[in-house]
């Protein structure tokens, strides 16, 4: 990867990404988000602030939301990663959270959307029927610079309702 020009030492990383096994030798300091985008060629996970603040790069690691800019690919070795590409069914049917974003117009520019959706999938896994306050608290790690929070929260609540 051009992103890591100086490195010499490499580590073998084996991940299951969206159900598919991917193995690669990468430089030790490779971040999970770069592994996903540059090695696995899954570019829907956006890189936002790169400082653990904005949540744009949120993916699921063994089912739990994490910020993939602040996880080493090597730390995720042997584990299972889900990106937003892995949510829809093989037949192309959208995940309930994706469907709710569509119906509630839960996005404006769309940059934060993959991270928002993954954070909500994780939130609903832990708390299937959240209150509006719990949704807002559950999204404290995700920033929408269009400030489109109201419809994002509506989408989370609608997805919870639809999944009951």
């Amino acid at each position: 990867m051009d992103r890591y020009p100086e490195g010499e030492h490499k580590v073998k990383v084996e991940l299951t990404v969206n159900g598919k096994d991917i193995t690669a030798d990468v430089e030790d300091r490779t971040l999970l988000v770069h592994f996903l985008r540059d090695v696995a060629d899954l570019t829907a996970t956006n890189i936002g602030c790169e400082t653990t603040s904005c949540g744009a790069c949120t993916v699921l690691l063994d089912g739990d939301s994490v910020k993939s800019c602040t996880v080493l690919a090597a730390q995720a070795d042997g584990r299972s990663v889900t990106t937003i590409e892995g949510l829809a069914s093989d037949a192309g049917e959208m995940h309930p959270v994706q469907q709710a974003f569509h119906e509630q117009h839960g996005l404006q520019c769309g940059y934060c959307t993959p991270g928002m959706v993954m954070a909500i999938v994780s939130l609903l896994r832990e708390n299937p029927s959240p209150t509006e306050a719990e949704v807002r608290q559950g999204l404290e790690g995700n920033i929408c610079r269009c400030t489109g929070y109201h419809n994002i929260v509506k989408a989370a609540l609608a997805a919870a309702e639809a999944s009951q």
Partner: protein
Amino acid sequence: MIPPSFTYARATSVDEALALAAEHGEDAKYLAGGQSLLPLMKLRFAAPAVLIDLGHVTELSYVRDEGTYVAIGALTRHHDVATSELLLADVPLLARTAEAVGDPQIRHRGTIGGSVAHADAAADLPATLLALDATFVVKGPSGTRSVPAAEFFKGIFETALEPGELLTEIQVPKPAKPAAWSFQKFNKRAIDFAMVGVAVQGTSVALINMGSTPLRAAAVESALASGASIADAAQLAAEGTNAGSDIHASKAYREHLARVLVRRALEEASARA
């Protein structure tokens, strides 16, 4: 932003972690959840030559009832501390503090031991563990020792841990009145560190970000012990502190916040008890 180059080493047990630390010496640093260390490395505030990843040391992830105290493995993640039924019942202050750390994604990765060993004076958990009179179990080349929280935090990012030593367990005595707790955190945005924070258990009071380490508000505690009212005792909250000034708040404002938050915390803890 990417971290500076380093060599990655993986430990799968405590013994292996200690052996790797002995092999690589002062060039190595332990990596727990990485939610503090990796951001610092990206900013080049830290540049260890070797990272010893503890993420696969599963033996250090647990919350156990030990009768008079609760034992928590150092690699237990904040989310697991926050949702532990045992802690919610017997030490709710600790569970609720873990719930206040960072955001959900950070709580899924960050560990209690990582937060303690990192020893950021603005962090939430160190102050709560200080208020709870926790004990830290440390393993190293010369064996195992226990360090009381009051003797553990030495300065900015500085602890009683010697080179090569690994924090393995946090022991938290069960408070006599678990419900008599309060955790107050004043910040501008949900994910920010506390500008000032307060952890109260009974009449034990600890302060976040009022000096280079978490601090016990000793003047408040002794005033309460002498029968002072909450309002009067809280006026002493800034005594013995050494808060800094930065873009978020002046020293005087932090001292004001400490007095206000200590009063609120003591009132809430006493109302819950």
